[in-house]
């Protein structure tokens, strides 16, 4: 409670603090390139760190209620369509790391969850994540964050549904179907003290891992904010250049980064005049389609199914990119 009050107190002081630091303490001139950049950096870094800590803590608490075993049970009885939507939403809140994609995949398949529903989960889990959401909110406002959330879920639902319709079950490796899973282990309910501890651990783990990416990213953003003239990138990444959307999806696939590293770049691109749809497509492609995850999934899926997976998700991201470029422009 006390730390929550302290959080709001500090958060409210950020604007005066960044001005005081830049203009009074460092004595930089108002409106100068360096002054603009430093003020941006001094304001954004603590702001994003504070937001991140709060959100990761909140999500940590939420996740202490949700386990993969529980999600598996919820999805087990569901048909397609309803199952796809549910799976995509649960993909956002279920604690999941791509390194345990294989046991999760097998767990879902052995529970009789349809392949398409499983894919909705596997697409949404990395694509719509809380760090991306909070960074977008902090740096670009709630509208962009909301757009990202809704379209991310939509791509996961539709792509999973399409994969289900394509009847790809025979492209799952044979050994997977022979696996006999034991009775699912049901964890004992955690105490509230345990949940708070779990949430604090996730704050330490996640914030400890991503803060460096963020600071570097915000520094790049600050440099652009101060020096690069507006509209620089409009020609190649603007909404008129239709081919820039597929190009950014292609460039995004081999790139592998967490959301914390991508979003400051996203902000930098937008500031230079790139179109929102193009940038959103790039970001989704980087975090949802990653080569390391494909290599992991290759253990359970045949190449054909991997290709369909990349194709369908890539097509979904393309449509999102074009849609935004048309609607926003």
């Amino acid at each position, binding site marked *: 409670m006390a730390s929550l009050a302290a959080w709001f107190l500090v958060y409210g002081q950020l604007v005066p603090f960044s001005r005081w630091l830049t203009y009074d303490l460092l004595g930089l001139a108002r409106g100068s390139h360096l002054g603009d950049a430093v003020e941006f950096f001094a304001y954004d870094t603590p702001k994003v760190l504070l937001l991140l800590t709060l959100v990761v803590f909140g999500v940590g608490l939420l996740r202490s209620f949700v386990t*993969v075993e529980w999600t598996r049970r919820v999805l087990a009885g569901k048909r397609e369509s309803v199952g796809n939507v549910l799976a995509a939403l649960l993909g956002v809140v279920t*604690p999941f*790391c791509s*390194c345990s994609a294989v*046991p*999760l995949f097998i767990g879902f398949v052995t529970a009789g969850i349809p392949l398409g529903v499983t894919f909705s989960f596997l697409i949404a889990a990395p694509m719509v994540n809380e760090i991306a959401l909070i960074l977008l909110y902090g740096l670009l406002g709630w509208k962009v964050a909301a757009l990202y959330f809704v379209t991310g879920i939509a791509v996961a639902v539709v792509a999973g549904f399409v994969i289900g319709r394509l009847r790809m079950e025979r492209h799952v490796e044979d050994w997977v179907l022979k696996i006999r899973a034991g009775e699912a282990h049901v964890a004992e309910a955690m105490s509230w003290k345990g949940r708070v501890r779990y949430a604090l651990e996730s704050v330490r783990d996640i914030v400890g891992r991503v803060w460096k990416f963020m600071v570097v990213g915000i520094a790049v953003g600050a440099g652009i904010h101060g020096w690069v003239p507006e509209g620089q990138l409009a020609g190649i990444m603007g909404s008129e250049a239709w081919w820039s959307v597929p190009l950014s999806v292609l460039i995004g696939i081999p790139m592998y980064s967490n959301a914390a590293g991508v979003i400051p770049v996203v902000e930098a691109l937008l500031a230079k005049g790139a179109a929102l749809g193009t940038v959103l497509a790039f970001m989704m492609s980087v975090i949802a389609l990653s080569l390391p995850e494909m290599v992991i999934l290759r253990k359970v899926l045949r190449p054909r199914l991997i290709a369909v997976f990349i194709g369908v998700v890539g097509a979904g991201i393309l449509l999102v990119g074009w849609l935004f470029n048309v609607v926003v422009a």
Partner: protein
Amino acid sequence: MKLIQVLGPGCAKCTEAARIAAEAVAESGVEAKVEKVEDIQKIMEFGVFSTPAVVVDGKVKVVGRVPSKKDVAAWLAEA
């Protein structure tokens, strides 16, 4: 002699879980063996679908996260 099994297909967090378990055993002085289980079929038989997971004498103690040293020490102290 207790048996601690760390389930996980060799990801970073699974290695960390195994290290913490081994350290907790060394510090507690309880006689226990720490074993890594990487075979998917065996992991599935425990009904575990998210890794890392830790099993003590055949009972699943934690799933999907790295336990703290204190957690492991408490399991070791149980009968």
